[in-house]
């Protein structure tokens, strides 16, 4: 029989406001096994924890029930407390009487009654708890960063600088990501390339960093400290070790009419290409869909001109298997498709562009060498309309836009408007906005400068429709302040498209068993306290894959993720979760049902000799669980018909005891 202590927390008035904590403590004192029961203002405080420790010693407690906030909040705290008192940490159960009781029920009698029942369930469970000891597993001291944008670059550099090897996997032929496509950055207006490319070079030169460019993660197995990852290096038909990046092949390639992704398709590139001058690795890649040699076996020009002999038309996709201790997701974002926004005529007119396209138009390395020219006729636009929140804050239809605020558009639009007025003072610039959101250091000042110093026309209201007519774009919009409908004949319209997580994130999340929100942004382990960790142990989040972010935020989160990874890789061993499945071999039929449903491959079968009840010996096939691999979902326990498989910490009899206590 257990000797259980019950500790009821007031949580100030958070619990005590709706739950009569004294009554709860009194009621639970009568439960079987309970030998001590008390209440206190803040159980999680040092004083509260000391109270528990003292009670354990004074009353020889063998189990603890804390009636307090969610176990997701303080279960770990009280387990440590138990350990400090010399108890096994898994002899603690939490009754959640805050989030699931005092905060959702308003009346004291109701809240109190429910709190008592939840407490009884916890007591019933503790009565059946057994001490559990976590297993240990080694840590592979190597990190994987998925995504080579500024987030991935910064994370990789920080981890590598701490002395741990890092691999970056990037789907594109070069790292650099979205930041490499930007012209200037707000609010300081320094040139994106000038601050990014040195970092890219650092990555390339770091002896602890390997870059797998033009590569994808195809399989992830294992668990924190011991991930087995398969990386597909897509065939680029160029030997990376030989290519010098001289660009001769690019010049000679006859297939020049392929939309250039780097310039948002606003100009063309050849079939063999280097995305941009500062690409890392600076290695050519052949676009297999465009190359006549690969398609028809005719041409071979690049191979002839390559002095290094780097071209290899027979190259195949290569699969690399590597072990990692930690994985950082930095898959970034993309602007959403504008195809569904018929009212803005994006697909009808070349002169309706997205902001990212505008970046390329104003970038010196862009399709127009930095001159702001209309994509349709190459003329200088005199009247430019910027439309904000296109697809952001759009709750009405999920297939069209996104419900969230994309966060960065207000600032980059201000930047675009300001730079346009700065470079081309003869241009009239209109910005249609719903709200201008500028929380950030020097952000609002920046926006005000655009209005006050650069004379950008900020109009509160939305553009209703855009109709291309001749070489102008008829913009119809409302001005809510002056309560007028405006009709503007614009030369160029720039849409601040909402941003969304990269499409590769969803399948990756499935591989990683990391959870995502409804918008496909990765979920953090805790929105405030663990913002760079995924709930899946060993998986960390960096940059916009977790939510819209600007560059400074991304970089700081990247650093934070790196420090978490370093903290993990510093350890030689990890203590696992002791709440894992285990099989009672005497009852196991060897039927393999559990093995079939285990997502981790944690169950294996062996033939063992048993002494049977009828005094014979038999060799039987029985299941055994690898506790280091098992994550404790419990799927096998239900698949098992004989009930031989059970889950420690959430055993059949424990859950049924909780059911019984609740239904009493």
């Amino acid at each position, binding site marked *: 029989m257990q000797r259980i202590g019950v500790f009821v927390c007031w949580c100030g008035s958070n619990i005590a406001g709706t739950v009569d904590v004294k009554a709860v403590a009194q009621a639970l004192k009568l439960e079987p096994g309970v030998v001590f029961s008390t209440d206190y203002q803040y159980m999680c405080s040092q004083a509260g924890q000391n109270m528990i420790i003292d009670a354990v010693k004074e009353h020889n407690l063998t189990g603890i029930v804390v009636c307090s906030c969610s176990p997701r909040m303080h279960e770990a705290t009280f387990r440590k407390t138990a350990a400090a008192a010399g108890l096994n940490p898994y002899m603690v159960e939490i009754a959640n009487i805050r989030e699931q009781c005092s905060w959702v029920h308003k009346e004291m009698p109701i809240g109190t009654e429910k709190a008592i029942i939840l407490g009884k369930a916890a007591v019933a469970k503790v009565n059946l708890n057994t001490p559990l000891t976590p297993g240990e597993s080694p840590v592979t001291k190597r990190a994987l960063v998925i995504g080579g944008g500024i987030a991935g670059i910064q994370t990789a550099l920080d981890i590598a600088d701490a002395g741990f090897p890092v691999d970056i996997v990037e789907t594109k032929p070069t790292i650099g990501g979205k930041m490499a496509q930007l012209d200037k950055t707000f609010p300081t207006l320094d040139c994106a390339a000038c601050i990014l490319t040195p970092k890219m070079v650092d990555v390339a030169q770091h002896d602890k960093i390997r870059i797998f460019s033009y590569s994808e993660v195809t399989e992830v197995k294992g668990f924190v400290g011991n991930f087995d990852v398969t990386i597909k290096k897509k065939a680029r038909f160029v030997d990376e070790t030989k290519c010098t990046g001289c660009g001769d092949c690019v010049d000679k390639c006859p297939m020049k009419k392929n939309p250039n992704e780097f310039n948002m398709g606003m100009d063309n590139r050849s079939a063999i290409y280097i995305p941009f001058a500062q690409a890392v690795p600076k290695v050519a890649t052949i676009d297999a869909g465009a190359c006549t040699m690969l398609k028809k076996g005719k041409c071979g020009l690049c191979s002839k001109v390559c002095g290094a002999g780097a071209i290899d038309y027979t190259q195949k996709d290569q699969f690399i298997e590597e072990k990692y201790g930690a994985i950082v997701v930095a898959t970034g974002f993309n602007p959403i498709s504008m195809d569904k926004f018929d009212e803005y005529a994006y697909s009808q007119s070349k002169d309706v562009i997205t902001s990212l396209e505008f970046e390329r138009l104003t970038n010196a390395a862009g399709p127009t060498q930095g001159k702001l020219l209309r994509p349709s006729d190459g003329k200088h636009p005199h009247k430019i309309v910027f439309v904000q929140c296109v697809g952001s804050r759009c709750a009405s239809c999920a297939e069209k836009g996104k419900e969230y605020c994309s966060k960065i558009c207000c600032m980059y639009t201000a930047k675009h408007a300001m730079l346009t007025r700065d470079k081309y003072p003869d241009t009239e610039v209109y910005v249609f906005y719903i709200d201008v959101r500028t929380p950030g250091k020097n952000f609002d000042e920046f926006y005000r400068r655009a209005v006050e110093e650069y004379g950008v026309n900020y109009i509160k209201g939305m553009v209703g429709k855009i109709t291309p007519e001749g070489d102008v774009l008829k913009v119809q919009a409302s001005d809510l302040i002056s309560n007028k409908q405006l009709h503007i004949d614009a030369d160029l319209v720039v849409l601040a498209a909402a941003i969304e997580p990269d499409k590769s994130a969803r399948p990756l999340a499935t591989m990683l068993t990391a959870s995502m929100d409804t918008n496909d942004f990765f979920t953090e382990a805790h929105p405030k306290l663990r913002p760079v960790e995924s709930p899946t142990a060993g998986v960390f989040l960096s940059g916009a894959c977790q939510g819209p972010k600007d560059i400074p935020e991304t970089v700081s989160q990247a650093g934070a993720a790196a420090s978490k990874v370093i903290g993990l890789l510093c350890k030689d061993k990890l203590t696992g979760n002791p709440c894992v499945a285990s099989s009672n071999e005497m009852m196991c039929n060897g039927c393999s049902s559990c093995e079939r449903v285990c997502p981790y491959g944690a169950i294996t079968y062996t033939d063992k000799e048993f002494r049977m009840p*009828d*005094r014979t010996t038999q060799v039987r096939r029985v299941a055994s669980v690898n506790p280091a691999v098992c994550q404790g979902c419990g799927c096998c326990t239900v698949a098992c018909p004989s009930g031989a498989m059970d889950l420690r910490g959430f055993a059949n009899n424990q859950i049924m005891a909780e059911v019984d206590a609740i239904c009493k």
Partner: protein
Amino acid sequence: MRKLSLDNLNKFFAAVAESKTIYLPVDQKDGSAKYAKWAEGTEWSNALNTVRSPKDLFFPQTEDLMEFKTEGKNIEIIDIRKESEDFVIFGVRACDVKSFEVLDRVFLSEPVDSFYASRREHAIIVALACTRPSETCFCTTFGIDATEPAGDVSAWKTDSALYLKANTEKGEAFLKSIEALTEDADTAEVDAQKTKTAEIMKKLPLADLTTDAFGGGKTEELWNNPVWDEMSQTCLGCGTCTFVCPTCQCYDIKDFNTGNGVIRYRCWDSCMYSEFTRMAHGNNRLSQKERFRQRFMHKLVYYPENNEGLFSCVGCGRCLAKCPISMNIVKVMKKIGGDK
């Protein structure tokens, strides 16, 4: 002897039911019969016998013995024993009547089982003579006369009437209570029926089955017989034979936690189960062979040894009809006693 016209049968049931509950065999949906309470409209089954024997009415499959109520850390014991009310079991066959004697020797010897005793005391058994025994019947082997059933009242059903004869004081009182519906009668029709049935009994396929090889004192001789190995090897270990058997009397006592207390109840158990007679050291009969042997040795050797030669099988044939693999006491008796 009294005679009740079959036309008055329902009146008779109704008259009895006015003061006592009356149980009688009725047909179930699946075509088999069971004992059920009579109520207006209930039809008396023509079946030779019920699937479950009438022992249920004295020794139900489950029965609460006592209750504990818990409140906080206090336990209160609640006595739920109560005196049975008078009831009538109607239409009991001779074999089943005999089974009550087997059960009595278990439950009514010291210490007396008060639950059983109370019911037994308040029951009036109206036994019915057989006229169409089945090929599975072998009551004669155990000295039972199916045409002259014991019980408080013996009854014979002919095409037109039910003849009733009291054997005990209880029976006489019972017949007295329904005197108005009956009339005095001679035994001619009953005698004719008895003779006819006795002829059939002689022709039954199992008529020559004997118990010669069995009885008290045969333990040593039979214990190591290789027959047990052979006959038990396909036994499924289910409890069908024991649960349909009118003389099997084993039970288990269990506690059920209701959340607010505990109900202590007993329920039938079966020596065929691997969980039967589990003790601190485990189970004392570990193989199906041992469990199989136990059942038949108990019926044919141990019980007679302790009860002046009375076998605890009454030849009702239920296990012959219901065993999923058709293994039964007759096959065992024949195999050990020498085939034919």
